[in-house]
């Protein structure tokens, strides 16, 4: 006998029963409250991630921990709250080491999904690049500590038949990791192991041989938003003007792979329009090596891994009115930043002195006047210069690049579809 009650979410009256979970109730009514650690079957809810922060009866708190009660007033979509929830997701990206393009879970990952839904193009927080291990010891699983968001689902839910924990938090503070018990893990059945992998919202728990995601396009969060109304990310800034003067664009690939430049070429027929309307100045696309004048837009691929990158990036900042980072590497370091958790010395030794093809004593670490110097870590472009706009993806979709460039040049309103916003 559950009591019928009425609650209000963002002004909308909702009839439901007393004592139900707020996130679930909202979801049934088509109101999306972001959540990550919340898992219907765990009671009481874990309340660890804080992604679901809403105002509940006027006070900020996690929606997943709230039970419906008569007269409850909930605010979900208020700019301050949206910003706060977004910040929490950004914190997770900054805290872990999330290289989505190289992740088995990409496309099926709840963290990534939250990033897409909220339009997290870059993190306002510095990436911490804490060195973390990958645990290959368990018989059947691999634990990727770089990706764990400490949601605690596995700790609570993954038990052996004799009710022993397979996972448990170890240490505390920012040293907290999820530890796995090798003995207990070996006792899990295949199905239980797979269930553990699936309960993990990120790619931290993998079962060997079973972890590869489905092909692109078939994965859970690839193409469509869970929201009734698809989120649209509008360019926050429109510095362009509507004069018909021909505009100039410069592009560069710093510590990147040229994948983003390939994606620029993927604009396809748009490219034909584009060259009608703009001139390309310094760019690998036309092999012009020096700036000939000030440009309207600079598109930057890649982060900064050596002293030359820094110089070039600074020159771009001076010469371009608007600077846009294109792709994950430029935005926060991307795949080259995998080295950021390892001391530079070790990287150099591994690459030049101890690698398989090296003969002892025969190789040296390249250096010389004419060579740029390697930085202690890969820096995101916005650590070096101000960046005006970020286009995420590895590489970004051609559509996103094209829409953004058009907007920046002519101030056209534009919106990015869910399926055009990607980290991989």
């Amino acid at each position: 006998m559950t009591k019928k009650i009425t609650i209000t979410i963002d002004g909308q009256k909702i009839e439901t029963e007393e004592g139900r979970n707020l996130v679930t109730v909202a979801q049934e009514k088509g109101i999306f409250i972001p959540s990550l650690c919340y898992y219907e079957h765990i009671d009481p809810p874990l309340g660890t991630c804080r992604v679901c922060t809403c105002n509940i009866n006027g006070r900020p708190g996690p929606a997943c921990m709230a039970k419906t009660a008569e007269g409850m007033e909930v605010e979900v979509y208020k700019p301050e709250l949206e910003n706060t929830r977004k910040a929490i997701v950004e914190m997770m990206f900054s805290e872990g080491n999330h290289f989505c393009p190289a992740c088995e879970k990409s496309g099926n990952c709840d963290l990534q999904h939250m990033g897409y839904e909220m339009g997290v193009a870059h993190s306002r927080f510095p990436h911490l690049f804490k060195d973390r291990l990958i645990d290959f010891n368990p018989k059947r699983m691999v634990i990727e500590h770089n990706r764990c968001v400490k949601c605690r689902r596995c700790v609570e839910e993954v038990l052996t038949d004799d009710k022993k924990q397979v996972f448990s938090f170890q240490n505390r503070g920012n040293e907290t990791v999820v530890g796995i018990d090798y003995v207990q893990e070996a006792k899990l059945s295949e199905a239980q192991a797979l269930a553990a992998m699936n309960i993990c919202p990120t790619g931290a728990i993998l079962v060997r041989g079973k972890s590869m995601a489905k092909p692109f396009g078939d994965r859970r969060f690839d193409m469509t938003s869970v929201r009734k109304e698809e989120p649209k990310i509008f360019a926050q800034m429109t510095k362009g003007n509507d004069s018909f003067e021909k505009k100039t664009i410069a592009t560069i690939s710093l510590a990147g792979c040229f994948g983003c430049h390939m994606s620029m070429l993927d604009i396809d027929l748009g490219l034909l329009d584009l060259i009608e309307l703009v001139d390309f100045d310094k760019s690998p696309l036309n092999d012009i090596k020096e700036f000939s004048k000030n440009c309207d837009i600079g598109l930057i691929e890649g982060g900064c891994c050596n002293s030359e990158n820094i110089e070039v990036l600074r020159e771009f900042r001076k010469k371009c009115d608007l600077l846009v980072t294109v792709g994950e590497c430029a935005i926060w370091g991307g795949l080259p930043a995998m080295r950021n958790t390892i001391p530079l010395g070790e990287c150099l030794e591994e690459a030049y002195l101890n690698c398989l093809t090296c003969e002892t004593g025969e190789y040296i670490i390249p250096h010389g006047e004419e060579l740029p110097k390697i930085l202690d870590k890969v820096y995101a472009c916005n650590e070096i210069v101000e960046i005006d706009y970020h286009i995420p993806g590895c590489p970004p979709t051609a559509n996103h690049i094209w829409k953004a460039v058009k907007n920046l040049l002519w101030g056209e309103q534009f919106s990015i579809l869910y399926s055009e916003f990607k980290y991989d």
Partner: protein
Amino acid sequence: MGTENNLQPKKRTELLNCLWAFQNQHGYIRDEDVAACSQALGMSQVEIEGVLSFYHFFHRQPAGQFTIYLNNSIISECKGFERVKEAFEKETGATFGGLDPSRQFGLFETACIGLSDQEPACLINFYPFTNLNTLKVKSIIAQLKQGADPADICDEVPDNLRHVPQADKAIYFRPYHPGAALQKLKDFSPESLIEEITRSKISGMGGAFYPTGKKWELCRQQPASPKYIACNADEGEPGTFKDRVIMNALPGLMLEGMIIAGYAVGSAHGIIYLRAEYTWLKPKLDMAIDQFYRMNLLGKNVAGINGFDFDIHIQLGAGSYVCGQETAMLNSMEGKRGEPRTRQFFPTEKGYLGLPTVVNNVETFCAAARALELGADYFLNTGHPDFPGTKVLSISGDCRLPGIYEIEWGTSVKEVLELCQADDPHFIQLSGPSGECISMKEIDRKIMKGDLPCGGSFMIFNKHRDLLDIMMNFTEFFKSESCGVCTPCRAGNFIVQRKLEKIAKGLAYTTDFDDLREWGKIMRMTSRCGLGKAATQSLLMALDKFPDYFNSKVDNQKEGLNKEFDLDRAVAEYERFTN
């Protein structure tokens, strides 16, 4: 293995004690000890490891015949921490975080050990050594090398009781006769006792100020049993040491408070959760407990009241600040990781082992005992009309008379500064790092709920102390003491620390301060418990109250589209490798 089997825990609640026993026996917890606990409790090893790795006094590697914990709190830092640290390294041949080659000495840093009135201080095998300097360190290490026992050469810790209100206003520090309060117990029914406590307006002295009478009443009404009385003797807020002094000077008063609470709510079991930093106080408490049993103030038919049985035992913590948070403490008492619980239930409803539990701190129990002894009217006659009673302050830092001050609520900051002879105060950190930062413009404000509520820590800093250093010390503290369960606190403190490092390097812009404000607010809004909510509070206050200082940290000329970047530093490692 014969003897070791005796150490095996029979119940989960004994886990911490067992881990202590193993560690005391071998100097660290060995693989086989973990296995033994896991076997005995039917838990997986990873869960045992999870518990022990939460507490920083548990070691999984040998920690030396002499394990030295040097306090790295801000007061210690001000009083010469760095020099003392160097001296320890020089004399022992070990570096902090590890052992010397002969494995005789292990050096570790630890957060505040409750000796802020005599810093720098350290614990050696959990015995206190205070007022350290280079010479003293040299002599201590020399003695240890010659086979001295730390128990014999440790310092006598003075109480430094500096101020008590005039005779008819003092509550805590006044003559104490064991049993004085309990004698009166038989005149009260549980209901009338709670009535008396409520009338005296006692509230939680930890800083939350929850009315004690109300808390007891909530617990009394619970149908579930047994019920528990838990005494929070885990004062970990840096700069606090009042409970140390109260337990040293008035252990019986605290016990009486617990017994009274037991009578009021219908509980027969009291547990004192004592922080491991105060292990050296445990014999004193044990003695007091023994004496109470002998005087029939504990045990069966306590204080001659038929059918009222009460016993008290001590549970030692193992090094974790967040365990001072009541639900974290309950988890720790149950032999779990000391993570705060979610706020589904009050401990009075579901506390220790899921049963109704009253959690109060040392000072509150003492106040309750005095309320019974002296009567509620006495209380109402002290302190501020709106907020009666007195408060025990732990004063440390830049003043001539650091120590313990019992003041009436409503005393102004200025009066306190005069009492402790602070000649050149520049700012005051009230209630520890998670409290408030007070500038000299505010010294007429009153210490009491409604103006400046205070948990007990009162740290004074003069002009020569660098505000940024202090804030960085606090941030490091929160970063390492966060339980790690929720995102904003676990990651947030780490992120804030990076930002402060950037400011310290001189690479900051005014926008970096705006970032700190925004981020601090997000942490406050979203953190799961008080630690994360309060972690950036002082920093944000300092930004507002000392704008000139922080503005001096940025050079506004630099601001432009190209950011400050230290290229030389960034290529230094490469240069080193290729030269």
